[in-house]
């Protein structure tokens, strides 16, 4: 599903070239659950952003479901990730001005799905996540765990093949974190969704089927 060949990314800082990613080679098959580990600044987020096509890289090749991402134009790229990738963030990144319902609905709006269909899909997912009663609340009225639940629901609503989660439990207490990780495991096992998560915690990383360790932008073997 994902094939990264010799991906390198750098930034220029005061005349010096600082490498964020160095020669990353990674293959992810459909249905895998991968945990990326590493200390702060090791490049976890950058790697996820590159995989999610939110960020660009300077060298290397990236194939996503057989499409050469490095050759695609911005518009096609956004088309690609829009329909195949869902994102979950450490800071939830819900839109404060929108209700729970509207937050979940937004990705569908951007995919031009009809109103009646949208309603059905959102109702489904609200039901599945047990948050029907909260659908008219605003993010600020929810606890952190509930917000992240909405975040995961929003990532899933467009039925993506791949979920990218950047420290999804970083802002949560251990109980809430466990619930989210259980959810991921369930999604991976029952729905066959591919998941790549970045995490600090050994315990959370253990939920994955494969662990990759990053240090200073390199994959440690």
């Amino acid at each position: 599903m994902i094939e990264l060949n010799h991906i390198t990314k750098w930034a220029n800082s005061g005349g010096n070239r600082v490498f964020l990613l160095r020669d990353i080679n990674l293959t992810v098959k459909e249905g895998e659950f991968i945990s990326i580990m590493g200390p702060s600044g090791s490049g976890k987020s950058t790697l996820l952003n590159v995989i999610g096509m939110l960020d660009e890289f300077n060298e290397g090749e990236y194939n996503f479901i057989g499409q050469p991402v490095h050759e695609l134009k911005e518009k096609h790229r956004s088309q690609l990730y829009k329909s195949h990738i869902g994102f979950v963030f450490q800071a939830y990144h819900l839109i404060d001005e929108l209700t729970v319902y509207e937050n979940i609905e937004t990705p569908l709006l951007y995919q031009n799905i009809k109103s009646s269909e949208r309603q059905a899909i959102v109702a489904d997912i609200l039901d599945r996540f047990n948050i029907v009663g909260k659908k008219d609340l605003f993010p600020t009225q929810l606890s952190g765990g509930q917000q992240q639940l909405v975040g995961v629901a929003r990532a899933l609503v467009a039925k993506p093949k791949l979920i990218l989660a950047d420290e999804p439990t970083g802002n949560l207490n251990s109980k809430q974190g466990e619930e989210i990780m259980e959810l991921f495991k369930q999604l991976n096992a029952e729905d066959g969704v591919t998941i790549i998560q970045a995490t600090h915690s050994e315990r959370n990383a253990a939920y994955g089927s494969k662990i990759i360790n990053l240090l200073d932008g390199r994959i440690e073997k």
Partner: protein
Amino acid sequence: MIRNYLKIAWRNMVKNRLLSIVNIVGLSAGILFTFVISAYTWSELQVNAELKNADRQYILQSRWTGANMGYELVTIAPLAKALFEQYPTLISNYYRFDGITSTVSKGDKHFRESFQIGDSTLLRMYGFSLLHGDAQTALSDPYSVVLSEDAAKKYFAKTNVVGETISIENFSGAEHDFMVTGIIKNHSRNSVSSLLDDKENQFYLPIAAAQFFGREMVLWNNAHVVSYVELQKGVSPKQLEEPIRQLLKKNAPDFITLNLTQYLVPLNQYYLSKDNGLVKKMIYALSIIAFFILLMAVINFVNMSMSHSVTRLKEIGIRKVLGGLKKQMILQFLTESIVLVLFATLFAILLYAVSRNYFSSILGKSLPELTVFPLSFILLPFALALFVGTLAGIYPALVLSAFKTVDSLKGKLSTVKEKIWLRKTLVGFQFSIATIVFIGAIVVSQQIGYFFSKNIGYNKDYIVSAQVPRDWSSAGVSRMATIRTQLSALPQVSDVTLSFEVPDGRNSGSAAIYKVGADSTSAVSTQFLNTDEHFASTFGISLKAGAFFSQPGAFTDSSTVVINETQAKALGWKNADDAVGQRVRLIGRTDIYTVAGVTNDFHFGSMQESVPPITFVHVANSQVFRYFSVKLKPGDISNSLEALRKQWAVLMPGAPFEYKFMDETLRHLYKTEIQLRQAAYTAFLLALIIVLLGVLGLVSMSIQRRTKEIGIRKVLGSSVTNIILIFIKEFLFVIVIAGCIAFPIAFTLMQNWLNGYAYRVQITAIPFIISILLLGTISALLIALQTMKVAQSNPVKSLRTE
């Protein structure tokens, strides 16, 4: 999708209440001014537009070969009628009138009113409709009169007054009853019922009434009649040139045939282009001001949106991650700004309704009520909102949506920071405009102050003028002389003069004057003033040499004249004393006049023109007069006026005492300048509001950006004052630069404006200093207030935000 945009737009507005209100207030100020000027322009363009067959209505104008031969506005009395009768294929209708002023009485109501003695075609030609009466017959009986609705209400307190009578006085003092035969329904402004100024003519008399007033409209040497014609369809005004020439050649005396060219001006252009296009110029000037004010408001909006972008950046990032395209982001931002502008527009409409009267008084024209506009205008606010909203929203939308997704998610404002110079430039631009408008307002005020200062050459204080009944005969003059003596005997009165003119720029006429013994080709043009010997003492005009006709009260030889200094010089007397006792002649007259005195120059008319040569002729000689001007003694003015009114009623029963202070007369003379001053101050006020809102936005942006810096400075021991000063300094720089740009522009503009006046103030440094000090102080205060809170807050808090 659009519903979604609207919803978010609304929630964002409510969430950032302060920002929204500031934005809406600033924008509505700009939009309000645009509305006011548009409404003004529209109503000026409406003048004459609603006349029947407006595109075929013309007014006849006269071009004379010499400047003092006749008036442009009026023409040969029988010309229009003859054209209609002899060239029916060219002319489909005509209307002529002779404008006069006299006293109207009904019971104990006496007022001076203006009349049009004119053709009965008036009532059918222009689409005026009669509330009461019959348009076919209303203007046929010599003693019939047609009133406007307002006049009927004024004299009878109702409009259905057909068959009632009013009494009108003629020029020899006789009164006659006139029967009301029609009431004209109120109609929109046009150059038939209000030709000279905005005052509607209220009384229409039939041609047959001319005899009662000693007027006539049949002689070909009468060049004092206003004439309108309606052309047949498809006829161009050029086709009339030859027929007019033929008619004049056949009928008019040589003097007219040789010197007069008639031309036609379409009524739908006449109003805008008369008085050298005064109305047009005013429309252009105001439109430019309105454009800049709106531009300032839009710039503000852009600045405000940008300064608030941090909070929106994250949202944009999320939306992009969720699959939103750049195009969709732009659309969302545009929706928001359009919705906001729409609110501002609606608010501006509300403000318009509330402030209509205020702006009407500033512009000196009544602005139309909202209900007067055609229904299709309802689309205009929406079109405006769409246009201004797009204009104001497109820049923030483009900038914000162009951020890299990852950067926006982190709320990085680095790129925005780099563009701060752009925002500073924009605010600087606003400061420049505000400074220019303010300097302009001050200079215009100074010039107006000059108009009313001692430099006018006479003392205007405590002088009231009122028109007297007209009896232009030697008996009439001596009766007035007696009344003058009795009025001046009042203890409250210091002096009284009888004259045809008061210093309002309008005199009876001009002629060419030359020295006896010199060749008549050396004659110079002179303006006549018809006064008695008390004019100089009443108005405080000082004499350079000789006497003003004679010692007051002494006998005045009818052959004496008084001239002003300019006249003396024009005739070649370098020293005023040389002129006294000299004899002069007028071209076209056999009489010889002796110069009794030379006055100092004074401003009879507007300071736009230099003082012309003036010749005073005694009223006993010319036997024309209109005004008593009374110099009151300082003290209780209202008491003095009451005493004067009583004495007036006793001495001249039935004559209305409608007085005007000289100040009022001058205000009327400088009406345009005073309106300009008002408009400039209003524009400055709006510009100030907008510029301050702009500062508010930029400072809040600056504070956001520098919160951490403030925290660090405070930790390092900086005082509150020091921190406030940092922000003020940042802006002082902008203001100084803006001033440097504004000064030369303002100087050039005002120099240009002042050059239109023969007598003007010099531009000093004062307006420049005042404007920059005022703007600087107000901005500094605003910034201090705004930064106070941040400067006082606990540094731990601000440092934590990073």
